[in-house]
């Protein structure tokens, strides 16, 4: 299986893209406004806390990227297709949702792994369910970020409300794809 490199080819970001340029411009404007409006002390305080957060994230991001590549290299294509492929039905969405809940990491580790799943044969509905599950009910995100801000009662309650949402998103994604495909076939 490893002899076919195309199976594992993934789209990689280029050195420059417009979204990054737009964000850079907004960030530059916001930073300049803070500096001139609130003074250099406030500017440095914000920069300091952001740098700390950045440093804290780096090992997690590196681990996420490496897990993503290894998952792509090691996960047998047939298993992914059977578990979460387009023929996997409702149980495929369920498996993708559980995977999103169980796998650790934050928003920056999520996308490489989702792309890896797509590259080895997961269908878009399962990928959508996986990302939605990781975003809304992933426990590491709730423990690291949400709990300190909101407290256990609110977080538990919010997660309870969110449990059906990843499966719903996956079902909607599959319906949308099917509608697109049907419209495509209808054209001459």
């Amino acid at each position, binding site marked *: 299986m490893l002899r076919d490199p195309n199976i594992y080819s993934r789209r990689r970001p280029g050195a420059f893209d417009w979204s990054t340029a737009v964000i850079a411009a907004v960030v530059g404007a916001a930073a300049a406004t803070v500096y001139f409006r609130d003074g250099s002390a406030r500017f440095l305080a914000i920069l300091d806390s952001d740098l700390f957060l950045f440093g804290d994230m780096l090992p997690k991001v590196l681990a996420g990227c*490496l897990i993503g590549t290894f998952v792509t290299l090691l996960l047998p294509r047939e298993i992914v297709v059977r578990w979460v492929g387009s023929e996997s039905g409702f149980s495929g969405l369920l498996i993708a949702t559980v995977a999103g809940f169980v796998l650790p990491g934050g928003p920056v580790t999520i996308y490489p792994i989702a792309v890896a799943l797509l590259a080895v044969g997961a269908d878009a509905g399962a990928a*959508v369910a996986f990302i939605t599950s990781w975003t809304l009910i992933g426990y590491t995100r709730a423990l690291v970020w949400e709990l300190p801000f909101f407290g256990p009662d609110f977080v538990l309650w919010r997660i309870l409300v969110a449990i059906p949402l990843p499966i719903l998103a996956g079902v909607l994604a599959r319906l949308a794809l099917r509608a697109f495909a049907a419209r495509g076939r209808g054209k001459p």
Partner: protein
Amino acid sequence: MTLAINLMLWGILAALAVVAATRGRIVLQQGVREGAVDFLRLLPRIGLGVLGSGFIAEMLPRELIGPWLGPESGVTGIVIATLGGALTPGGPVVGFSIGAAALKSGAGAPQVIAYSTAWALYAVHRLLLWEVPLMPARIVWLRAAVSLPLPFIAAAGAMLLGKP
């Protein structure tokens, strides 16, 4: 807690590396090399997002959030909260601190749930900064489109279940 997450991530990675090593040294080397390249390409984007989030948050009109999103604001408040979540830039600290501040300054719980759900699912800056560079664009827009009703469903669920 952040240490526990790191240990768990690197533990999973170590297990994957061991499996890769049993398949041969080339598989292991390829995994490490490609993962490292992905990381280096991501680095400037993440740096920009994280360093920028603090400055952008400083620009937000926090004093307006309470009155517009109170428990009495009902469906209008949920719509505003959903829009606000979609338009809130910045990392987890920004979104969660605004949500928590809103809750403390009188926003209703369903509104805050709609806000944090919308922000988590389709904050515009995150779609542009992280998701589009990393994923096929088709999947990104499909996911964002099917996520549109989810904050409203979450808020409705929160109203039905009642306050914790």
